[in-house]
């Protein structure tokens, strides 16, 4: 069964420059797919379109998730709110509400499913709180449930965001650069959690990554983007450094390995002045 189906998706921000150029994409249920590309290649834009947070150009395009229309020809589908509740989104900046407790942040995942008035008043039942606590236990931070989410480290916040998606009962998780602002060990924990949700619950995961090595380690399938177009879609193992260089040219350095990334290569002008 198809989880995500994108046809003819285009997006233009400034005239004449397409951020997404007539994209077609299909992801089956239960897949774990990496989306790679240098910054500015359109990864985030694509994910924001699939989650219905951004509207496409008004030409012949359609995005369906789990057979529900998210948007068609630049207009959000009628059932977009119920469709959104089946899709968990994990963001680079976590997008938790800082001043609320971790538990409340996770309970927000239930808003799309419980009666509106109860959600609006923030009245959650014991059973619902239990669901949220179980999700927190699963990502390994149930001991932090009562703390304000701003007191958590980046990796913990990202796991709380995943717990929110689990609580949401999402069948599809879209993760937009979930590890881009994390240190390597937190990044691994977050990717492990996503992998776990994919393997055990059969949740379809589409995760955009800056670095190819994570894609190789966690995702059987990789989609590579450049300038708003898909330039590779297939088995991650085929993504050798050689192929990457063919695909990206000089930009391939940016995508290769997190370890090289940590050392700044660029020599800036002020440093020269000091020397």
């Amino acid at each position, binding site marked *: 069964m198809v989880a995500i189906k994108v046809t003819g998706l285009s997006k233009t921000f400034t005239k004449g420059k397409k951020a997404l150029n007539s994209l077609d994409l299909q992801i089956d249920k239960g897949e774990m797919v990496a989306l790679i590309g240098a910054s500015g290649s359109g990864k985030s834009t694509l994910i924001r379109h699939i*989650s219905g*947070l951004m509207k496409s150009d008004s030409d012949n395009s359609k995005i369906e998730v789990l057979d529900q229309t998210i948007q068609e020809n630049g207009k959000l589908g009628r059932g977009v*709110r*119920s*469709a*959104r*509740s*089946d*899709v*968990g*989104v994990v*963001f680079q*900046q*976590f*997008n*938790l*509400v*800082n*001043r*609320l407790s971790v538990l*409340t942040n996770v309970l*927000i*995942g239930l*808003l*799309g*499913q419980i009666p*509106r008035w109860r*959600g*609006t008043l*923030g009245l959650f039942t014991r059973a619902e709180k239990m669901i949220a606590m179980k999700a927190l236990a699963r990502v390994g931070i149930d001991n932090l449930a009562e703390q304000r989410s701003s007191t958590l480290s980046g990796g913990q916040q990202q796991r709380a*965001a995943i717990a*929110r998606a689990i609580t*949401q009962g999402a069948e599809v998780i879209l993760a937009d650069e979930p590890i881009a602002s994390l240190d390597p060990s937190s990044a691994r924990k977050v990717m492990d959690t996503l992998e776990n949700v994919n393997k055990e619950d059969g949740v379809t995961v589409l995760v955009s990554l800056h670095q190819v090595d994570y894609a190789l380690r966690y995702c059987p399938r990789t989609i590579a983007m450049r300038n708003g177009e898909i330039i590779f879609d297939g088995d991650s193992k085929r993504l050798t450094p050689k192929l990457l260089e063919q695909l990206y040219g000089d930009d391939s350095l940016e995508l290769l390995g997190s370890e090289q990334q940590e050392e700044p290569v660029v020599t800036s002008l002020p440093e*020269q*002045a000091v*020397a």
Partner: protein
Amino acid sequence: MSNLSETQKSIEIPAHDLKRSIGSLVMWAVFFALLAMSWEGADMRPWDLIENAENMSQFASGFFPPDMSQWKMYVEEIWITIQIAIWGTALSIVCSIPFGILCSENIVPWWVYQPVRRLMDAARAINEMVFAMLFVVAVGLGPFAGVLALWIHTTGVLAKLFSEAVEAIDPSPVEGIRATGATGLQEVIFGVIPQVLPLWISYSLYRFESNVRSATVLGIVGAGGIGMVLWENIRGFYYAETAAVIILIIISVSLLDVLSQRLRKMVI
């Protein structure tokens, strides 16, 4: 070392921008012209202060020593004044929450926030005293008219301050909530309000302080509180009593300022 001297050579102090310095001269000229122009209209007579110094010192001496014999009544009236401010502020906070959100351009479309903003402008543009005079006619003399006056005016002020806080929020948590399939109202309750709450509380406490100050004069137009006593004393040339009332007002306003500052520190 050669590198260093080279960079030093290339450094230059930016030349005076003639356009900008003329611009600032013009600005100052306009400013002083405005002051000079307003001299007559404002009936400025500074030398009168010196000429009439003796009269004034005589007038001032009438205030001393303050006559505290009726302090109990004064304190009671001040307490009523504070109660007027409490109710006026509380009602306006309740109204400013929805109005403040409806004034925010990052939450509602322009055809909602434009009319609501104009409505709030109107509430804010008219002074409490004017509202108080109108409400005295409508609901009769007494504190209730004062409460209504503070309510309307403060709603106009707080709604603007509240909406400014809302417009400065970080949109990403709200997006995170939208992505879970929440309704627009739920986005506001869970995503917006937690972010702005400390500022809102701080603004509300500040408005409460200033409402206590405003309420001390509402009595002059018959809207209850210590202002009525103050006005009667001034009109009757009872300057010793007036001094006593003024001293008590200063004490209570300072006490409330200290108290609300403490409270504000606690929430932020």
